[in-house]
């Protein structure tokens, strides 16, 4: 299956992926309305320790700890994509406790959220990849 991969040598640390992600998942069709002045909840984040930058988002692990650990049974795998059922999630953040990549975080309403490859939103393909100016993030089979 296609996943999002990061080539850190190409990452400029520009954080555009975070903005594109937050917009794609906002449900709004105007980027300014979605993001300007609002706290944003991207599902990808840039880690930066001064020397290097790279984007981190859900790895869609083949044997995901979050799925096995979710106390509500709210996380499942559908055709290889790890998905969170926001309706079932109670926001206990056990998924945050166990994800070894730090790729899950609470969303605006407290339920956990993470990258679901933009398959359910209007973007239809990962917005972080589409908007990455240096092709540091790619969406492909490996």
């Amino acid at each position, binding site marked *: 299956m296609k996943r999002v991969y990061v080539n850190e040598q190409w990452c400029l640390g520009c954080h555009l992926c975070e903005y594109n992600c937050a917009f794609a998942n906002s449900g709004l069709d105007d980027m300014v309305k979605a993001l300007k002045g609002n706290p944003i909840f991207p599902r990808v984040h840039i880690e930066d320790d001064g020397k290097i930058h*790279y984007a981190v988002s859900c*790895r869609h692990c083949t044997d995901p700890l979050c799925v096995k650990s979710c*106390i*509500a049974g709210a996380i499942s795998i559908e055709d290889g994509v790890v998905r969170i059922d926001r309706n079932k999630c109670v926001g206990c953040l056990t998924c945050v406790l166990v*994800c070894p*990549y730090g790729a899950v975080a609470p969303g605006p309403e407290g339920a956990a959220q993470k990258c679901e490859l933009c398959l359910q939103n209007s973007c239809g393909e990962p917005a972080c990849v589409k908007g990455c100016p240096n092709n540091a993030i790619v969406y492909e089979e490996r």
Partner: protein
Amino acid sequence: MAEYVIIGNGTAAVGCIEGIRSADKESSITVISAEEHHVYSRPLISYLLEGKTDTERMKYRPADFYEKNNVKLLFGRAVKCDSKKQVITLESKEKLSYDKLCLCTGSSPFVPKFEGLDKVKKKFTFMTLDDALALEKVLDKKARVLIVGAGLIGLKCAEGIAERVGSITVCDLADRVLSSILDGECAAVMQKKLEEHGISFMLGDTAVRFEKDKAVMKSGAEVGFDILVLAVGVRAETELARQAGCDVNRGIVVGTDMKTSAENIFAAGDCAEGYDSSVEANRVLAILPNAYMQGRCAGINMAGGTAVFDNAVPMNSIGFFGLHCATAGSYPEDGEVYEAHPCGGIKRLYIKDGRLRGYMLIGDVSRAGIYTALVRERTVLDEENMDKMKKIPSLAIFSSQTRGKKLGGVV
């Protein structure tokens, strides 16, 4: 075709079913459930009372779970286990034979023999869905509630009912709240949050005797109440395992393959005492993720596979009134403790011999899983990376090559 029997219908049982079915799609699986419910998430009962979920959404697996996995769900209580004949007897006298058995019997509330407890009418434990529904029936805006036990169960109960009762007092013999997962510094932060929401504490003190609507404490103090919740602790359900001749300690002793000492009998979940890699010894780890992973490991092995679960560590993610807390690992007294106060919260890292052994985060729990992984995988860090790790959990502590595998490969 094998006959698989699972006693218990909680998280470990689901793990076991999914483990079996990953290797064996055909053989029959029978689940014996003492509770007459579709499998639900036990830790969600406090959220149910709080109105954050309902009995439908609490289902731990979808409504068609048993059907899809070709599982026969039998409501009843197993009362006898003959490990020689490989036969289980139910309370109804019905008998079931098995080729492979998994005990997922969980734990039950431990209620000490308090003098006068029989005089208390409205008394509850807080473990099952039925417990929560029974408690819900007596909640009213004027009720004074006394909760005995300031552990995870007692405090989640307090949070769940806080808006629906008049007052809540929590007592515990321990000198701090959540004493099983928090040290004094962290417990104080959490206690303050709970107190801000009207919950009062009597710590280092506990009820010794009850009258109809009053508890007499060890200190001699008296606490009036209308509703009593007993959340002193839990005990592994090991009776069937004893009968079957399995080695039993605090829980049913299992190896890293979830086999008990009795042939063809496995155990998983809160009833089992499995390997805890953080202390390098067997221990009951009554936490939900552990139940699932043990169950799954048992299931795979019951179906002839070779699964091993040897890296369990204690870990908890729990929040009260919006203040989150994440903890994992062990807390050696002879190592270094790094403390910081990000965003008004508290963070304490327990470090020894170049390894993060355990941590407590209250407030900001972002990317806590990176810390948990360092504990679980026993990662040794050099001085530079140790400093980076202390500041913030991030993948920057790994080499570019290791990170390349994590972010550039299928994991």
